[in-house]
């Protein structure tokens, strides 16, 4: 190709024009620099207490929605309660990760039974679960209740069913559990206090 002076200028101006188009028309959108939106804006804040160790740090649980009728709320974040005099907003690695406990893949969602000798779980209804467990309890209690000991003293105990009481549930649940177990005569009970 033989390019004369005029042709050369043509090529040059075409190149310039092309890059001008790139600069004006096709140039990238303005690179904005805004911070990520604050994710807790308008989230529902609920005050609670960390369920791990006995420091009992106050936590703020943030969930979606405003508790209106049609919106299901989901916990999206948990952080320390700055008002709580003990932790003053701080949390340890366990408390700071509480959301992953609440949303653990290993949360149980419905009652299950593993039949004697079976190798798998079977989903059952609450009604069936309560019914079967209550029958077991009554049968065992009626069969093994000790009204009097060998010396003939009234002892009224049911020693053959045991119960380990949660140290993670609220005082009220613990109290109700103890009250119920004592009324049933259970003496084989303990809690996590020493382990």
């Amino acid at each position: 190709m033989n390019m004369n002076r005029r042709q050369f200028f043509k090529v040059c101006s075409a190149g310039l024009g092309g890059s001008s188009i790139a600069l004006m028309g096709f140039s990238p959108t303005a690179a904005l620099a805004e911070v990520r939106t604050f994710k807790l804006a308008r989230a529902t804040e609920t005050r609670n207490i960390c369920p791990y160790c006995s420091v009992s740090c106050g936590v703020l649980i943030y969930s979606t929605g405003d508790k209106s009728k049609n919106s299901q709320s989901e916990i999206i974040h948990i952080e320390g309660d700055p008002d709580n005099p003990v932790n003053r907003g701080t949390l340890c690695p366990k408390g700071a990760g509480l959301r992953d406990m609440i949303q653990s893949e290993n949360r149980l969602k419905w009652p299950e039974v593993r039949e004697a000798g079976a190798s798998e779980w079977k989903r059952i209804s609450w009604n069936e679960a309560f019914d079967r467990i209550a029958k077991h309890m009554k049968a065992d209690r009626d069969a093994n209740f000790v009204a009097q000991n060998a010396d003939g003293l009234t002892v009224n105990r049911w020693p053959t069913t045991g119960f380990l009481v949660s140290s993670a549930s609220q005082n009220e649940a613990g109290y109700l559990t103890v009250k119920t177990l004592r009324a049933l005569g259970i003496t084989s009970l303990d809690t996590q206090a020493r382990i």
Partner: protein
Amino acid sequence: MALQSLDIKQRSATTTPSTQVRETIEIAKLIDVSACIGCKACQVACSEWNDIRDEVGNCHGVYDNPMDLSAKSWTVMRYTEVEQDNKLEWLIRKDGCMHCADPGCLKACPAPGAIIQYSNGIVDFHQENCIGCGYCVTGCPFNVPRISKEDSKAYKCSLCSDRVAVNQAPACVKACPTGAIQFGSKEDMKDYAAKRVEDLKERGYDQAGLYDPQGVGGTHVMYVLHHADKPDLYAGLPANPSISPLVALWKGFAKPLATLALAGVALGSLFHYVTKGPNEVSKEIEDEIEREDKEEAK
């Protein structure tokens, strides 16, 4: 210390100045290594706030886990057992972005607006503008940014710019159970550090001091160290970090100069052409060939 989107000090790959008129407070995070128990609350709080979850790894025979910074671990604790003069110390340092006043990552970044330095000192990555070239990694004197294998974007600690923007402390700071991480204006943090250093000196740490390296213009994440004379003890914290001279050279004056040189070549050629004219085959030789052809034809 409100942080609004326009309070920008520097943007990557941008040659014109950003808005400079508003005066905002320069902030800093102070990590008091002498009060750190290495509990990793900061690691968890960071992951929780920023919605990142790294892989469940393996134990590698040390307490460290995850073993290194990654696109999904923006801060990690580094544990070092040091025995000096028969005294054992377990030095635990929270590693992560230092938010340099003179950020090497920003300097190296070729994508406009992918790295922003806010006027409060936070150096933030904007993944939307990131092209994944990894130049920020080469620019960083602390080896902090990481490129995600999933989206090829660069990630690192944002100093929770979204929290700071609404006047909340970063998530790690808020969580830190022992108050080893403090947050406030850089000036206040220096004052706080001075008190801590005084206390440490009283306890026999003669070389206690503040780590605010001037090689990068100071940082917005600072450390109180018991052995400020030997930052290297703390899992290789650099004693005198600065932007690699290679990066400085390359991103400093070399590139504009090279651009000018290239423009010079182009313009030189143009002017050469218009002044000297094209180098055409001389009439003489054309005639010679013609003559030869005629002779041959005979």
